[in-house]
């Protein structure tokens, strides 16, 4: 028999048992539905991660640190040996831990690497407050602006590298600081206050006081007030690193200067948790690897953008695996449904099989007839499930995006190629499930099958 005739016959057979076919297909459909949504969600998450990366990182830059634990490596349960570079850093949980930091000496050393074109200290500083005349004081953080970052601008414009004494202000501060709108804020000055760790000038002028009251007075450190011009107002970011949404961006030079004011006299002075080393011709992964190897040899720990991306993707992968496992279980369960349905189909059509065999139908064609029938069920299930997922996703996407505040980012991204592959796989699974019943049909003895009772 020709394949086309077998296909048509098996489709016709399915039509004769519509309810049974549909129910069996629906079981597969549940799996297809879950798997399609999983794929779409992971596509969305992956695209989101890629955007976070490309909006925040320069792929030719490597993050460098001295302490392994800061990049999520090393054993935090083991006592660490002290050296001068130790300083405290706040980890995600809010605890302050002692970690090795990069010093000016380290930065200089890395600058000497022949493959490195530039090293930029990562400076994140807690401002005492920001304000402007007539406005209240607000707490704020400032971070040095990396030219790799591409935040969305509401008003004004970003000049790269950022000019000194200019600031990129998050939109949320606009009305708090008393501006009517973002446009009005651009070009205006705001005051960034940094709490001095100790009043060096006073000590230099007056020496260390002998009287206890005066020492206490001196210890009540004063604030340094710096004027910054607002270069641009930034839209609430959808792709920034979590927790950094309200950061003010200032130039690397300013960030370092303010940081020095805040840290001078403390053990945190000129110590940096991270630095960013730009690699010459860093588009070539081999160059990145060379620098990373060199850093490792010199006792630093480093992470390329690619590794960062992998790290972020890992979390997605775990979630993906969990949902995929459920989809997979649903598919496995539906296999039994297909086996059962196909056995019933063989039983119901015993006579037809007998007649076909008596009329000279080849065994392999009989077997094909049932395998194709199973394939149709798999196809129907896959198509129904993924179509349902697609429709649901299309309806829900705008809502999810709004609820999660994702801006232009879609959470569910459907890929026709992936869906097609999924359906093909489900068809194969269904054919597999139909193998035993098809074999039973092929082996039927026509005389037995045609015996009338």
């Amino acid at each position: 028999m020709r394949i086309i005739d077998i296909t048509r016959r098996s489709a016709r057979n399915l039509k004769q048992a519509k309810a049974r076919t549909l129910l069996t297909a629906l079981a597969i459909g549940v799996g297809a539905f879950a798997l399609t949504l999983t794929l779409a969600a992971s596509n969305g998450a992956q695209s989101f991660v890629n955007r976070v990366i490309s909006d925040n990182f320069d792929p030719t830059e490597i993050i460098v640190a001295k302490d392994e634990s800061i990049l999520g490596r090393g054993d935090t349960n083991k006592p660490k040996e002290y050296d001068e570079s130790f300083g405290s850093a706040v980890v995600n949980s809010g605890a302050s831990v002692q970690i090795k930091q990069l010093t000016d000496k380290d930065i200089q050393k890395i600058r000497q690497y022949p493959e490195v074109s530039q090293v930029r200290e990562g400076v994140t500083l807690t401002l005492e407050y920001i304000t402007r005349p007539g406005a209240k004081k607000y707490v704020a953080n400032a971070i040095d602006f990396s030219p790799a970052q591409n935040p969305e601008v509401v008003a004004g414009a970003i000049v790269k590298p950022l000019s000194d004494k200019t600031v990129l202000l998050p939109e949320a501060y606009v009305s708090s600081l008393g501006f009517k709108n973002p446009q009005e804020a651009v070009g205006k000055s705001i005051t960034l206050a940094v709490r001095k760790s100790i009043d060096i000038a006073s000590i230099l002028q007056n020496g260390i006081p002998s009287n206890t009251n005066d020492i206490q007075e001196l210890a009540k450190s004063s604030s340094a007030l710096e004027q910054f011009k607002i270069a641009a107002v930034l839209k609430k970011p959808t792709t920034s690193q979590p927790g950094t949404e309200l950061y003010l961006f200032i130039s690397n030079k300013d960030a370092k200067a303010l940081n020095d004011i805040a840290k001078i006299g403390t053990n945190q002075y000129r110590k940096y948790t991270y630095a960013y080393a730009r690699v010459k011709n860093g588009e070539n992964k081999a160059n990145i690897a060379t620098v990373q190897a060199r850093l490792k040899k010199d006792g630093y720990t480093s992470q390329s953008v690619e590794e960062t991306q992998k790290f972020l993707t890992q979390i997605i992968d775990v979630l993906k695996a969990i949902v995929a496992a459920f989809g997979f279980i649903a598919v496995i369960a539906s296999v039994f449904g297909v086996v059962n349905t196909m056995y019933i189909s063989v039983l119901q059509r015993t006579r037809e099989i007998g007649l076909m065999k008596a009329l000279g139908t080849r065994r392999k064609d009989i077997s094909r007839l049932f395998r194709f029938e199973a394939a149709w069920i798999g196809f129907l299930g896959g198509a129904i499930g993924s179509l349902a997922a697609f429709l649901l996703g299309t309806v829900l996407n705008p809502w999810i995006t709004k609820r999660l505040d994702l801006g232009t980012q879609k959470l569910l991204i459907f890929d026709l190629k992936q869906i097609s592959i999924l359906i093909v796989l489900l068809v194969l699974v269904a054919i597999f499930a139909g193998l035993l019943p098809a074999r039973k049909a092929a082996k039927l003895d026509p005389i037995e099958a045609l015996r009338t009772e």
Partner: protein
Amino acid sequence: MIEVKHISKTYGKKDSLVTALNDVSFNIPEGSTVAIIGKSGSGKSTLMHIMSGLDHPNSGQVVIAGEVLHDLKGKAMDAFRANEMSFIFQSFFVEANQTCFQNVSLPLEISELKQRKAKVTEALAAVGLSDKINAKASELSGGQKQRLAVARAIVNKPQLIFADEPTGNLDSVTGDKIIDLLFKLNKTNKNTLIIVTHDDELAAKCQIRITLKDGKIIDFKQRKKVSK
């Protein structure tokens, strides 16, 4: 020429041994009409199954047009059955949910023949079911169903048609019509027609009448010489 040589067939083992056929031999010229009669359990169906290659004898040979039927292996046997012979059964075995066209085109699909539409139309016209071509088989009466089965049996012009009690489930008037139809087609198509029946009247119309009893031929009557 169809030669049946010393065919024996037993079922079961030892205590429950049944001898369905016991050293059966006869010759049939091509194009003749043959009736196999005998009491229930005498081995008529078994003989038909062996002559059509559906079943294997314990000993003996069936030679059709010089070829030993049971020497044919899988594929050749299937091809032989698909192209050279056909069946009509007591209980029709038409697919109720399929249309008349689909039922009749089955043998053409099996032997991968072309021009189906024309051949099916011709076969349905021969049995007088032209107007039912797109009707579901379930909508047909018993006699019409058997006519449909006849159309299916003749559609690819086989040399050999086996009919196992083709009128057994029909009233006598309808049954006679089917038999007349089969004889008419035998004349036009020149195929050999082998009918298993209980009906002596029907058997009398056939050129050859073989009577079985307990697996043995007790009577072989050839009414008149058939030209080869």
